[in-house]
């Protein structure tokens, strides 16, 4: 057992109203720059729908994530290291800008400079890539609220994988929102796909970052990520991705998307996991066992053996304390109501979801209210959102796990209603889903009324141990074009495993440091890129 800590997230889809506040605030903070117009580290998709970029979930098309070879060994789905080098001049699996959307703006000067006329002046959309006027034919959220569903939603890979037919007539349609960020996976295929070794997982908190100094723009991370949450900045020629707002996380603050979520549906907390068993869990033969396999490598922070080993592995005491209070651990492991997104990609994602319940209760109430509580459960299969659809999204198609979670959530609501309205405590209700009444009430409090400090249990980074922070400055994913970072140096690489490797930051003057030096000693760094005028269209100010 080798204990590592990870900052994980859970989103309660039951509460997402699709307002896109998370997307907009994230965009304003992180990707409001030339080169990242099409980039949304956080986006909210309406499901069913093709998603962003189009059909990203279809790995037969995009070849993201991992697969098992004939011997049962974990391999990148797009091919191994030799195949990557052979394909380095042209990546056969890379989405193009049109798979995201051609970013556009408007010629706002037309409005401000318009003379007094009888007719209102109109602005015409123009591409932010070329400056040319062009009609808008696709956008980051073109399918919002099932817009165009008869045409587009059927091409949702999760729907295509369903046996039963799904109708898109108004009376039968279903939908819910799926907010997505980088999954900060335990077994990240983007990191594995990066030929330059520029991508890495932080040992302390599991955040996956791109070293902007080391990235050479080979683009295999973009295609290697099955969630398509690594993006190519077409201005700098480097990859960028969600940073889990690590400057905030290090200070004990939630990410911007969490902080600004009006539905308060996001939870952030520490999860301890056994780093020795990550590859084993990701290699689980049957896809449907992957959720349980991932759960099996999460470690119980109350277990004395785990605590002892965590201490030996250098997990600070306050992190152990945070792990015990972690809402993410509670939802995923104590109550078993959170599930990972597309576990079949075998990346062991660390942003989990509570499946949406609201449409469930409508159906359940109409059929079974005030009858035998056991009768809730048959109704689960005649819900508006098909169990199979949720299963394709969250459990690699295993409907039993979805039913289990939905039953717990349904039972929780029913129990709480009976308690609040009728004043009676129904132990049978709790027992029917394998829980004690106090557990059911704790789950209710966590899902319904948890306060800021209950939803975000984030231990601060240990700056007193950060004796080498200066030399890492800039290599941590913040030094993009227009970003706040600066140059840094990177270390020699030393193997410790066939699948995993710890790359140490270099001390000053490492001979094999490949000529990189501390900018503090060398004076200011330059960027040839920044010095060059380009034929780019002028970037108007953001819509105002």
């Amino acid at each position: 057992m080798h204990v590592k800590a990870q900052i994980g997230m859970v989103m309660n889809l039951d509460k997402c109203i699709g307002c896109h506040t998370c997307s907009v605030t994230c965009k304003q903070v992180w990707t409001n720059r030339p080169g990242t117009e099409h980039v949304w580290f956080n986006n909210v998709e309406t499901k069913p729908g093709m998603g962003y970029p189009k059909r990203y979930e279809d790995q037969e098309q995009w070849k993201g994530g991992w697969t098992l070879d004939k011997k049962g060994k974990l391999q990148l789905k797009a091919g191994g290291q030799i195949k990557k080098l052979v394909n380095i001049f042209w990546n056969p699996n890379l989405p193009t800008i049109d798979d995201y959307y051609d970013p556009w703006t408007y010629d706002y000067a037309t409005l401000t400079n318009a003379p007094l006329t009888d007719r209102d002046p109109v602005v015409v959309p123009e591409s932010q890539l070329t400056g040319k006027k062009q009609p808008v034919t696709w956008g980051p959220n073109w399918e919002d609220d099932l817009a165009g569903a008869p045409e587009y939603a059927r091409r949702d890979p999760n729907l295509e994988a369903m046996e039963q037919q799904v109708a898109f007539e108004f009376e039968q349609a279903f939908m819910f929102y799926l907010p997505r960020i980088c999954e900060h996976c335990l077994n990240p295929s983007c990191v594995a796909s990066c030929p330059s070794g520029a991508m890495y997982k932080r040992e302390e908190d599991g955040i996956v970052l791109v070293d902007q100094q080391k990235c050479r723009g080979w683009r295999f991370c973009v295609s290697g990520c099955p969630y398509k949450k690594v993006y190519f900045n077409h201005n700098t020629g480097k990859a960028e991705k969600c940073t889990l707002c690590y400057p905030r996380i290090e200070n004990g603050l939630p990410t911007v998307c969490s902080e600004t979520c009006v539905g308060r549906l996001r939870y952030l907390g520490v999860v301890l996991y056994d780093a020795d068993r990550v590859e084993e869990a990701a290699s689980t033969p049957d896809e449907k066992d992957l959720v349980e396999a991932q759960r099996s490598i999460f470690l119980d922070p109350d277990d004395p053996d785990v605590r002892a080993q965590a201490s030996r592995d250098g997990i600070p005491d306050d992190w152990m304390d945070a792990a015990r209070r972690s809402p993410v651990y509670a939802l995923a492991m104590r109550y078993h109501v959170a599930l990972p997104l597309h576990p079949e990609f075998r990346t062991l994602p660390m942003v989990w979801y509570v499946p949406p319940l609201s449409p469930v209760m409508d159906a359940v109430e109409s059929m079974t209210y005030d009858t035998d509580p056991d009768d809730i459960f048959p109704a689960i299969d005649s819900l508006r959102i098909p169990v199979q659809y949720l299963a394709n999204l969250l459990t690699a198609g295993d409907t039993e796990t979805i039913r289990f979670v939905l039953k717990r959530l349904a039972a929780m609501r029913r129990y709480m209603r009976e308690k609040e309205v009728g004043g009676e405590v129904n132990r049978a209700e709790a027992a029917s889903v394998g829980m004690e009444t106090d557990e059911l009430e704790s789950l209710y409090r966590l899902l319904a009324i948890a306060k800021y400090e209950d939803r975000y249990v984030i231990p601060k980074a240990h700056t007193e141990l950060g004796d080498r922070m200066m030399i890492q400055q800039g290599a941590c994913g913040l030094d993009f074009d227009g970003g706040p970072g600066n140059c840094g140096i990177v270390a020699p690489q030393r193997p410790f495993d066939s699948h995993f490797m710890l790359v140490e930051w270099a001390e000053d003057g490492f001979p094999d440091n490949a000529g990189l030096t501390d900018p503090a000693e060398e004076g200011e760094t330059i960027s040839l890129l920044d010095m060059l005028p380009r034929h780019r269209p002028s970037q108007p100010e953001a819509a105002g």
Partner: protein
Amino acid sequence: MTVTEALLWVALPYVATVIFIGGHIWRYRRDQFGWTCRSTQILENRLLAPGSILFHYGTLAAIGGHALGILVPASLTAFFGITEAYYHIISAGAGTVASIAVLAGLIILIYRRATVRRVWVTTTWLDIAAYTALTVVILLGVWDTVVTNTFGGGYDYRSTVAEWFRSLLIFQPKPSLMTNVPFMYRIHVTLAWLLYAVWPFTRLVHAWSAPFQYLGRPYILYRRRFAPSGRFQIGARR
């Protein structure tokens, strides 16, 4: 040795090499962030596939051919029983195939950059300089390979150009070897030095980042933010 010969066949190669090496060191130390191939694949995918693949593999073949023709003395190939006629067939044949690949790739890439507006707007004047230098050098090289060597009478560059190049490597330059070299060879060589001189300042630097270290590397990389207990540990798991 005239002044022109001294400049073209002694000074230019050494100055270009100094700029080439020094420029790379300077750029690598100061401009890690700008060190990228600056791919435009995300902006245009279809033309890039034949263009980039033909160009790069053709170029690799051409580089290999240059290494064979220039660095390996004729006496060495003769020692292994490769006659001049046999060598000529190999070099002209393989050279023509590589030439066609490079040229076809280059034409597609230039067409793409010039006509696809999404790609064109990302183009800097340094890109144009690199493209121009590459195009001229490649056109001349293709001429020398295809027109002179394959379909023409052939030219034994191994006894002149190659010997001159190796004389530069051992710092005993023999510029007189270049005096009677055909004009098209001389201008190919001269402009190639200019290409080397602009190389470090363009996106061509990505050639040195060919990620061979990826082969055999463990897939997942961790980096440690803080030194455990202040002590610098390498590769330690526990």
